């Protein structure tokens, strides 16, 4: 556990400094973190490797899987690669990273892909991250790649999101030790696009799994995890920096977590949850178990507890085993000693310690009001209460039943006996009545019955003459005894029923609360998809069955969501679902229609008709109770209404988007019309003026009018040419006739042309020597560059404009920089939109709003990229940069 620093002096934290020196002796670990396979981690890693190699760094490739991708393999070209180690495993030759080769070669940096990899049996370490640890210890820098799903503390979240368990996991501390984490990000849509194009490597036997994994929802969630993880990491780095440099508070985390675990299965989840909380709060955490000296654990429980502790330690917790009697007391004692601010416990239903935890929670909360208590439940979906547990049988807990009864009767007897010896008690039976009532409340009806019988016996034995025998001498005592037994049974029955009612009422309240939570979740869901997902998880939680959700589309209904996500519907299932959809009645299992289906399908009737169909898989084991039916019905009704509402709001959005589009087109038309008509008006006006009034004008006035005619004709010509170019780009008919082009040549001739158009304006040029040839269309490239220069001259505030041609890694860049006011960040992307104009250009020639859009269209048609940055120089100006990849020139 990290030190919290008791002293507030501005002195560097020794621990932090120590960690720093330790780190400097070790190699530096750089992790390329991605959300999913295929985002381009290996590519990014190798691209960077080539760059540092070009700068003269001693970098070798330890192991990289190209998965047969040509572009990745091409990057390996020219990089030194270590030989792989071949291991023989059950007759198969497995290739592995050769750590010894790396240690002998001792490069400054070694690239080892796939941090989460599990080594083949017979390797030195079972896991690759251990190999890497050894390399780092030897002072070698390591670059490696990792997908967020493999991070230990996130693995159960990932499994929940994707519905696929994660086998290969990397402890969080490996990430914690990394000196640099680079996030390789790609939007889910692009990733899916790459997957479709076959650019993502998927082993043949995993094709099906991949289909359920690579979904937009999954990828978005994974991406969020990756982004958050990286953000948290940056935060930690800031804190480290502050500590190393003795920057005063507040850097220290105010929060400390105390996590209580036991030998139950839930504890693993508690630990993971706590690890996430701790990392989110940036708080140290202590994990404890409390064992009772008088109740030794079974070997199985000990093993499980050990495992959980190991996991906690891996995730960064300090661990401690505590022996004690009173759980609450021990937990509180630990919390006080450790200054914990939050307590995390599990509340489960089965086995071990967890049985007591509901009341434990209450006890904790009531004892220490200032403490945060987090209860982790073992239900997959947190809002999945109420659950449809089997009805509480009478004899569900026979031990407890009898124990309570014996206990209360013993206490009543003791009190009665003690009092009787002091003062003569005429109505000892009343004491027993109290005992029976207590048994009824705490032990239920069965307990009350047992208590009644025991009370009768004890009463008879201890107090009815002759005492110490079960014989009853007096007839009136017989009547009294029988009456007592009857009253005890009646009262016990009533009391137990009352407490049962209370229990049912509280369960109802919980059910109502769950429904309320669900409806709140629904009201927050804007999209149909969100509603469907909320409903599926809720239904699954309530019914504990597989759930499918079908929505209409294209005249049929189709699977929209399911839990578990890879659930599939057979032909008979689909037939039943369609029946439910068309006939608006339940179909499938347990109904009169198509009962062979494994699912029971119900139509979702909204205000405007049936909006979808929900199917619940029936396993036959749990027949539905009336209570469940009510809850299910309520959920289905709410879902139907929510879907209806989501549809309406979607339709409204589409409407307003259409309106917005119409408005945009109108503005566009008016803008084009203005741009065409202004030069025309000038020309017409000038020509008619010359014809009708020319003889009354001075010669230089006439000249000026003629010149304006010429200029405006030229402007009109350019505008029309731009419009035509734009139309070609929009129609996708721009064909770049790419050939080998000398960029320097194009730059020089374009600048000459620009200087003709803007006489007196200076364009500074700097062209790197030995620029390689690029693949481009010289006409399109010239026009794109001209448009950029034209734009820079118009918006550059009269300052000089500079054009650079440079080599940047494996690309040639052509950039145009002006020193004008610059472009605010929000408009940077928009400048490439058609007809986007930022205010008035200076001088007399406003732009058409097409130049940059055309430049972008042309550059992209040639296979290059273009981007804008602002400010470019000393908080001023804008730079447009075109990039063209350098390809090997074939030998002549």
């Amino acid at each position, binding site marked *: 556990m990290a030190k919290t620093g008791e002293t507030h002096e501005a002195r560097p934290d020794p621990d932090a400094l120590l960690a720093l020196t330790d780190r400097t002796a070790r190699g530096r670990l750089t992790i390329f973190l991605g959300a999913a396979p295929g985002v381009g981690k290996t590519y990014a890693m190798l691209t960077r490797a080539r760059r540092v190699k070009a700068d003269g760094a001693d970098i070798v490739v330890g192991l990289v899987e190209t998965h047969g991708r040509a572009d990745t393999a091409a990057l390996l070209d020219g990089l030194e690669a270590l030989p792989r180690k071949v291991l023989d495993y059950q007759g198969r030759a497995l290739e592995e990273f050769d750590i010894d080769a790396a240690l002998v070669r001792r490069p400054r940096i070694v690239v080892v892909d796939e941090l989460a990899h599990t080594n083949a049996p017979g390797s030195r370490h079972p896991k690759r991250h251990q190999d890497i640890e050894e390399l780092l210890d030897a002072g070698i820098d390591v670059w490696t790649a990792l997908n967020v799903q493999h991070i230990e503390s996130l693995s159960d979240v990932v499994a929940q999101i994707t519905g696929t368990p994660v086998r290969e996991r990397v402890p969080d501390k490996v990430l914690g030790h990394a000196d640099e984490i680079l996030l390789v990000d790609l939007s889910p849509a692009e990733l899916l696009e790459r997957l479709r194009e076959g650019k993502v490597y998927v082993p043949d036997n995993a094709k099906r799994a991949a289909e359920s994994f690579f979904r937009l929802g999954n990828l978005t969630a994974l991406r969020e995890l990756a982004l958050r993880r990286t953000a948290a990491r940056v935060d930690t780095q800031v804190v480290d920096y502050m500590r190393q440099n003795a920057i005063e508070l507040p850097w220290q985390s105010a929060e400390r977590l105390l996590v209580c675990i036991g030998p139950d299965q839930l504890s693993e989840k508690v630990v993971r949850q706590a690890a996430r909380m701790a990392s989110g709060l940036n708080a140290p955490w202590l994990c404890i178990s409390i064992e009772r000296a008088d109740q030794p654990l079974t070997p199985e429980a000990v093993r499980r507890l050990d495992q959980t502790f190991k996991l906690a330690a891996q995730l960064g917790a300090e661990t401690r085993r505590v022996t004690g009697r009173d759980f609450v007391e021990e937990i509180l004692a630990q919390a006080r000693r450790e200054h914990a601010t939050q307590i995390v416990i599990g509340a489960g239903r089965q086995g071990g310690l967890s049985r007591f935890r509901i009341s434990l929670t209450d006890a904790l909360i009531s004892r220490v009001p200032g403490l945060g208590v987090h209860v982790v439940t073992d239900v997959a979906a947190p809002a999945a209460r109420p659950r449809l547990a089997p009805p509480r049988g009478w004899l569900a807990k026979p031990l407890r039943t009898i124990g309570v009864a014996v206990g209360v009767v013993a206490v009543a007897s003791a009190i009665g006996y003690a009092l009787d010896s002091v003062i003569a008690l005429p109505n000892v039976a009343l004491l027993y009545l109290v005992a029976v009532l207590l048994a009824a409340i705490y032990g239920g009806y069965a307990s009350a019955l047992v208590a009644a019988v025991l009370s009768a016996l004890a009463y008879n034995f201890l107090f009815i003459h002759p005492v110490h025998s079960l014989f009853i001498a007096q007839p009136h005592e017989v009547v009294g005894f029988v009456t007592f037994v009857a009253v005890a049974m009646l009262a016990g029955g009533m009391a137990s029923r009352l407490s049962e009612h209370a229990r049912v009422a509280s369960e109802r309240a919980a059910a109502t609360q769950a429904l309320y939570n669900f409806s709140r979740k629904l009201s927050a869901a804007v999209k149909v998809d969100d509603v469907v997902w909320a409903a599926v998880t809720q239904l699954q939680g309530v019914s504990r069955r597989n759930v499918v959700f079908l929505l209409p589309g294209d005249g049929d209904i189709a699977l929209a969501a399911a839990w578990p996500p890879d659930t599939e519907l057979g032909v008979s299932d689909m037939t039943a679902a369609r029946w439910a959809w068309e006939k608006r009645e339940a179909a499938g299992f347990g109904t009169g229609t198509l009962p062979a289906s494994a699912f029971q399908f119900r139509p979702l009737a909204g205000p405007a008709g049936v909006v979808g169909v929900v199917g619940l898989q029936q396993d036959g084991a749990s027949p539905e109770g009336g209570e469940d039916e009510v809850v299910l019905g309520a959920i289905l009704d709410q879902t139907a209404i929510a879907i209806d509402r989501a549809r309406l709001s979607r339709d409204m959005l589409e409407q307003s988007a259409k309106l917005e589009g119409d408005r945009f087109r109108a503005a566009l038309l008016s803008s084009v*019309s203005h741009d065409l008509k*202004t030069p*025309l008006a000038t020309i017409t*006006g*000038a020509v008619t003026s010359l014809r009708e*009034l020319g003889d009354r004008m001075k010669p230089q006035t006439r000249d000026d*009018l003629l010149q*304006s005619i010429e200029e405006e004709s030229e402007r009109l010509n350019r505008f029309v040419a731009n419009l035509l170019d734009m139309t070609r780009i929009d129609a996708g008919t721009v064909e770049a006739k790419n050939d080998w082009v000398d960029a320097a040549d194009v730059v020089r001739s374009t600048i000459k042309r620009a200087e003709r158009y803007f006489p007196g304006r200076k364009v500074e040029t700097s062209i790197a020597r030995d620029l390689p040839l690029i693949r481009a269309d010289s006409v399109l490239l010239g026009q794109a560059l001209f448009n950029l220069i034209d734009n820079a001259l118009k918006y550059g505030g009269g300052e000089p404009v500079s054009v650079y041609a440079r080599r940047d890694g494996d690309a040639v860049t052509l950039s145009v920089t002006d020193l004008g006011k610059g472009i605010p960040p929000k408009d940077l992307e928009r400048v490439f939109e058609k007809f986007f104009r930022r205010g008035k250009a200076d001088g007399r020639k406003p732009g058409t709003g097409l130049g940059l859009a055309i430049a972008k269209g042309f550059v992209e048609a040639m296979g290059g990229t273009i981007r804008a940055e602002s400010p470019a120089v000393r908080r001023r100006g804008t730079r447009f940069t075109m990039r063209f990849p350098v390809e090997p020139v074939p030998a002549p």
Partner: protein
Amino acid sequence: MSPPRILVVDDEPQIRRFLHPALEAAGYEVIEAGTGADALRLAATRAPELMILDLGLPDMDGKEVIARLRAWSPLPVIVLSARDREAEKIAALDLGADDYVEKPFGIGELTARIRTALRHRPQADDEFAGIEVDGLKIDAVRRRVSRDGRPLRLTPKEYDLLLVLARHAGRVVTHKALLTGVWGPAHAHDLQYLRVFIGQLRAKVERSPTDPAIILTEPGVGYRFQMPSQP
């Protein structure tokens, strides 16, 4: 007498570049403004006799310039607009602009409009005595209309309509102005009345009703009564 001073308001420098010398050659003194605020300031301080106003200005809508100007000045305004949206022009006219010229235009068209606007301010009912154009004579005092000396029979509504047009001879009168002037504000949008009555009126006053020479149509905007002795 000093030449009439014209205020040209347009944000496009190239339009002012040809208007300035052309209007000067046509015998006017020209002052320029590039924004609505400048236009209002110059209208107040330099006492121009006419304003030529582009509707698309950077700082305020041309219509707003008219509305503000009309609060204190009857200065004739001719609207220039590159926009071919009728609604814009009609709104400007209804706000008090005197006429409009659509870009692109010939200088002759503009100077003719300027002359009309400068010569005749719209006259109130009691001042308007009558007009004679192309053989059509309107005697507003005696409420008589004749064509080449022969009296014409007009219904009261036809006469009212003709009178509104004639009083604004040479200028465009919007549909709305005609409808409210003749039928009252409640009928400001009953364009069908106007179409029918204009048709009847033309049949009586025009030499060739299919090729009107006196009551001219301004498509989408209104009608214009032909100016007498228009070149």
